[in-house]
């Protein structure tokens, strides 16, 4: 282990590996900020550049792009998540920006993310010997329970009303039914359109619901994000100290992120949302969320980057990609003649260390940039909205096109932009649509496979310890908010622990 670590340090912190890592980080940072672009896309684009490079140069370049992808800045400043996993950050991050606390929010998000990434890598190293059996214990019943738990928790803490949350979730689940049936491979609900064969695309939906809806709001409001009588306050130290003071929220978020990241196919959006849910449910009584609570920024951002370290667990140990990013990473590794699995972690430990150190370096570079540029980026919140709106709208529309180079994606994004604006107007939590779009295919496939395994018996979801544990956690998620609401109604002061619309 020690020899591998020393070799890894030597390989990464040498010329030109370090230059490649920094270049990849810069590319990943830009991609993360732009709506519609993600770190995994940056990785895919950079793979051709690695042809002819040794693995110790290719890996830092690719990991740099993946790890530095940072979408929290636009989520906080403009209510436009750079990636789907930053959507939960908008709940409290954007209200903080509206209150003139953008600098504090940005630095807290950046520091929480950076420490979350370190946590994920540390967990990977510590648990390396025992992780194989844990990851392999997750089967279709557990995946189904996890998907349902994500949706149930969303409904349970939806602001406004439980019914509105359920409407959004069912709408998202219905939208997820369009396209290819994951079980039979047949086409359903396409209305004769080739465009819907692959289902409702996630990224244009995200761009429309959040980015373009926000653009419409800015154009109708014609003021600025922060009202002129609100001072811009809070800087790097304020945000860092907020994370230190709320270390338990950070730790919870990072733990959830690492655990969820280790489960193949679940994704960062689930991790960040479950982490936010955990902060809402188990925070101190009387605390409100959705109005600029710093914990609502710390929790999801900790899990966002912790999940990268977790995702490396099944990817490097078992060769199972846990996310798009790790799938592209494994493709690149195999292209360079490196097969993930037992051999990689025993015979090429130096390369494993290069991967881990490059991930840490990318996070440090990206988050440091956001932390120290935060007070300058915060100026965006006092820019007149009539100036900001065309810029955001343009970037979103072009970003929607760039994903699949299909004009229909742009039209779809505009449609979702109008829908998102209307949903915001009537207080419907549009995050439900996004989460349901992500989780429904997983739930459907897992349900079908589980029932085939059990020959139609639903007991399979309750006679396996991991699945039963998640069912009980789901019950807890449902019961705790009801108890809190009942107690809150018996006291003056309104509701606590709700997710914004």
């Amino acid at each position, binding site marked *: 282990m020690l020899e591998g670590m020393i070799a890894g340090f030597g390989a990464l912190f040498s010329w030109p590996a370090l230059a490649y890592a920094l270049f990849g980080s810069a590319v990943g940072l830009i991609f993360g900020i*732009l709506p519609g672009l993600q770190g995994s896309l940056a990785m895919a*684009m950079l793979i051709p550049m690695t042809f002819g490079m040794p693995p110790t140069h290719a890996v830092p370049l690719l990991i740099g792009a993946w790890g530095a992808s940072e979408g929290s800045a636009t989520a906080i400043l403009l*209510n436009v998540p750079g990636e789907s996993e930053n959507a939960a950050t908008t709940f409290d991050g*954007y209200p903080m920006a509206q209150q003139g606390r953008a600098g504090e929010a940005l630095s807290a998000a950046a520091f929480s993310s950076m420490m979350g990434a370190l946590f994920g890598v540390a967990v990977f190293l510590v648990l390396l010997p025992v992780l194989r059996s844990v990851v392999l214990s997750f089967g279709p019943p557990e995946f189904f329970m996890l998907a349902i738990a994500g949706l149930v928790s969303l409904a349970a803490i939806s602001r*406004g*009303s439980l*019914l*509105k949350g*359920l*409407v959004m979730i*069912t*709408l998202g*689940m*219905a939208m997820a*039914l369009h396209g290819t049936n994951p*079980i*039979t491979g*047949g086409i*359903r609900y396409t209305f004769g359109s080739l465009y819907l064969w692959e289902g409702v695309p996630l990224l244009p939906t995200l761009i429309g619901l959040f980015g*373009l809806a*926000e*653009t*419409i*709001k800015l*154009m*109708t*409001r*014609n*003021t600025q994000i922060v*009202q002129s009588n609100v001072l811009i306050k809070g800087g790097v130290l304020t945000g860092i100290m907020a994370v230190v003071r709320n270390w338990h929220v950070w730790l919870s978020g990072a733990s959830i992120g690492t655990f969820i990241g280790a489960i193949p196919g679940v994704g960062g959006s689930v991790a960040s949302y479950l982490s936010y849910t955990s902060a809402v449910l188990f925070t101190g009584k009387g605390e409100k969320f*959705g109005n600029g609570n710093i914990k609502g920024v710390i929790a999801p951002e900790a899990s966002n980057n912790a999940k990268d370290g977790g995702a490396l667990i099944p990817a490097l140990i078992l060769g199972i990609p846990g996310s798009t990013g790790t799938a592209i990473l494994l493709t690149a590794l195999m292209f360079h003649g490196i097969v993930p699995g037992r051999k990689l972690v025993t015979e090429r430990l130096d390369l494993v260390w290069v991967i881990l150190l490059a991930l840490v370096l990318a996070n440090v570079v990206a988050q440091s940039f956001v932390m120290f540029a935060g007070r300058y980026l915060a100026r965006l919140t006092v820019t*007149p909205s*009539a*100036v900001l709106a*065309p*810029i955001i*709208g*343009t970037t979103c*529309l*072009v970003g929607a*096109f*760039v994903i699949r*180079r299909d*004009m229909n994606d*742009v*039209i779809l994004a*505009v449609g979702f*932009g*109008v829908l998102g*604006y*209307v949903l*915001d*107007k*009537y*207080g419907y939590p549009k995050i439900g649509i996004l989460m349901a779009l992500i989780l*429904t295919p997983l739930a459907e496939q897992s*349900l*079908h496979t589980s*029932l085939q395994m059990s020959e139609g018996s639903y007991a399979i979801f309750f006679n396996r310890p991991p699945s039963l544990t998640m069912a009980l956690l789901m019950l807890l998620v449902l019961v705790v908010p009801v108890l809190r609401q009942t107690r809150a109604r018996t006291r003056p002061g309104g509701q606590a622990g709700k997710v914004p*619309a």
Partner: protein
Amino acid sequence: MRLITRTFAWGELGLCLAFLAYFAVLAVLTPPLDPLTRLLPQIILTGAVAVILLQMLSVVNQRFHNTVAATELAGPSQSDEADAGVTTPLLHRETAAIGWMVLYVVMIIVLGSLVAVALVPLLAMRTFSRVSWGIILAVAAGTWLFVYVAFVWLIGVPLPPGLLFDR
């Protein structure tokens, strides 16, 4: 607490009716497959119809009682409008904003992305704000440059050339 006007309640009811129509169409179009395969779609659509009907009842009930607590929307409120000195009715501004977005897409299709990206922000800023021509031109030029450098030059994405310039 703020009162929500009659207009708001009818609008929300209309939204719920649109969702109900969508779910109903999907329910009718569910392909005839084996029970196991159509299990989850049936559960989803049945649940969706039930939930939306309950929500519609809730909306109607709230309207009759006329004491709905307003959610804290990011959109404009009456007090926001007063602070901003905005006098144009909200519905007109919403229509104009959505209209501009649709126009943007039409101009991308007809004139191409690079022309639309320069032209539409310029016209939108002129329409929606009173900032000076200098700022408008600088922002429009900056946006065009950003899109060109980030998407065309760095990433190499061929943006749509537009029907007028497509050969």
